[in-house]
């Protein structure tokens, strides 16, 4: 009886780990392959059959991509847009998140519902009229226009996530600080803010990745001042394969590193958004 139980246990464990490893391979193998394709010679991209080991390792295709017209500018644009988006959405959104976390007030549920709903509007319905409006306001084809749009897209997310972060700080701490002579702002800055910095940093990084990856609005709102995804997208049909591979990898690498850096916060963040 006992041995059959433990045999079943071992069988279960083997099954569990095989499934887990198989799914990990499904996730990781494509990332390995695009890295392989992005770091090879131009000839290796068209080689038949392809090799699966980095025997043709070379920075040739990557160097070609980076030195192509407009690419470095677009990388710079992407970074600026993402940084502006992070700063603007946190400065605008975090106070709102704090309000939702700390106060009971009339219309609170309606406002919260409004944020949830505004997250769901398709990008197309926002970017097409904004492009028309930006044309009249001289914001079309500027990185500021894209940053405005990205901030609007990120705000509902930032509000909901920061509300979740502020809920996690016990109210007692804040009240204790106030009884010890801090006013509300001081209590916030000296007690609440330091405790929430890791969570806010994770939200900031996630917002950065949202903006870094966004392609539809960025392409609609620009013509020459492209962000990186807009640059790669508009070149899809006219560019050689190795340019696209290098561009794909170039977009993925920082995002994956960032997401890995905030891995511990991911579950909490999504748990908050979903509920």
């Amino acid at each position, binding site marked *: 009886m006992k041995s059959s139980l433990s045999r079943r246990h071992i069988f279960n464990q083997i099954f569990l780990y095989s499934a887990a490893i198989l799914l990990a391979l499904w996730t990781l193998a494509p990332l390995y392959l695009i890295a392989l394709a992005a770091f090879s010679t131009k000839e290796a991209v068209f080689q038949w059959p392809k090799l699966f080991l980095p025997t043709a390792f070379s920075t040739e295709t990557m160097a070609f991509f980076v030195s192509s017209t407009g690419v470095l500018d677009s990388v710079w644009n992407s970074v600026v847009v993402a940084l502006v988006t992070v700063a603007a959405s946190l400065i605008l959104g975090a*106070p709102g998140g704090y*309000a*939702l976390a700390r106060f009971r007030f009339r219309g609170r549920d309606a406002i919260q519902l409004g944020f949830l709903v505004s997250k769901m509007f398709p990008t197309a*319905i926002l970017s097409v009229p*904004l492009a028309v409006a930006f044309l009249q306001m001289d914001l079309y084809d500027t990185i500021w226009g894209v940053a405005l749009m990205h901030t609007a897209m990120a*705000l509902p997310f930032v509000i909901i996530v920061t509300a979740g972060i502020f809920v996690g700080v016990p109210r007692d701490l804040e009240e204790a600080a106030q009884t010890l002579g801090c006013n509300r702002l001081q209590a916030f800055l000296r007690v609440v803010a330091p405790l929430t910095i890791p969570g806010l940093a994770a939200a900031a990084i996630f917002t950065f990745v949202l903006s870094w990856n966004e392609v*539809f609005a960025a392409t609609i709102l620009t013509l020459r001042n492209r962000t990186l995804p807009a640059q790669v997208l508009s070149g899809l049909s006219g560019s050689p394969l190795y340019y696209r591979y290098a561009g794909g990898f170039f977009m993925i690498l920082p*995002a994956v590193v960032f997401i*890995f850096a905030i*891995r511990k916060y991911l579950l909490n963040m999504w748990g908050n958004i979903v509920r």
Partner: protein
Amino acid sequence: MRVRSESILPYGLLAPTLIFIVLLIVVPIFQAFLLAFQTAEGEFTLIQFQKMLADTSFADAMKFTFLLLMFIVPAQVVLALIMALLIHTRFKGHTLFLYIYALPLAISDLASGIVWLSIFTERGFLNSILFQLGFLERPFLFLSYQNLPAMFGTIVVAESWRATAIVMVILLAGLQVIPRDYFEAADVFGANTLKRTLFVVLPLLRPSLQNALIIRTIFAFQTFAVVLALAGRVIPVLAGESYNWYALNRNANIAAAYATLVLIFTVIATVIYFRLLRTTAAEAGFD
């Protein structure tokens, strides 16, 4: 006086965001309606929608958008459910696997399309390995208009690969709020893993499952860059047509008509979402 300032404070804190959202989300939506429903002279018209319907790509765009949705969403949910259930057993080393499964969260649909392009293209990795294993004598053209089902399949694979991570995280968050007692009770009654999953875990996970399903459905209506990367314009989709009409043809009116259609489908899905969620949260017994 103090009470007064306290009661105004939350509105003050929310005001900047609300103003921003009104200016950059609410106003644009009304402007999109104006673009879609108004003539240059400001009269109501359906001409943009008639032009949209007459567009040669319209029927295909509708067909492929809904087909993609029907394949992608279930594939993502099933795959993510397996991942989440595996992680939730908390086997040794499960956190490492969680982080691996979550990695595609960082990847855009455009990048995902390019990743799978390197695999499915004529001299790509898939053809290479099938050739080396002796299954093929020459490359199979996955990405040719002559093999439309194969091309469609590559998009389903790429989207499933990318967005499964999001669904997995949602489902795992849902699993973690299910009280442990439920699992233990099932064990006491001698349920095996499969039975426990089917009859205890899945019903309790219904709110999260439906949540994930509808969120993915809403975003599936917007599928765009991954299609463009893998299929070019051979497989049109609604969001892609909106993009084409504005970015290539400089026609904001028809682009807005397509966008309005996507919005209508999104609203329908959202209404269903809130309806279903309300009933099931109560059914599940904990909220």
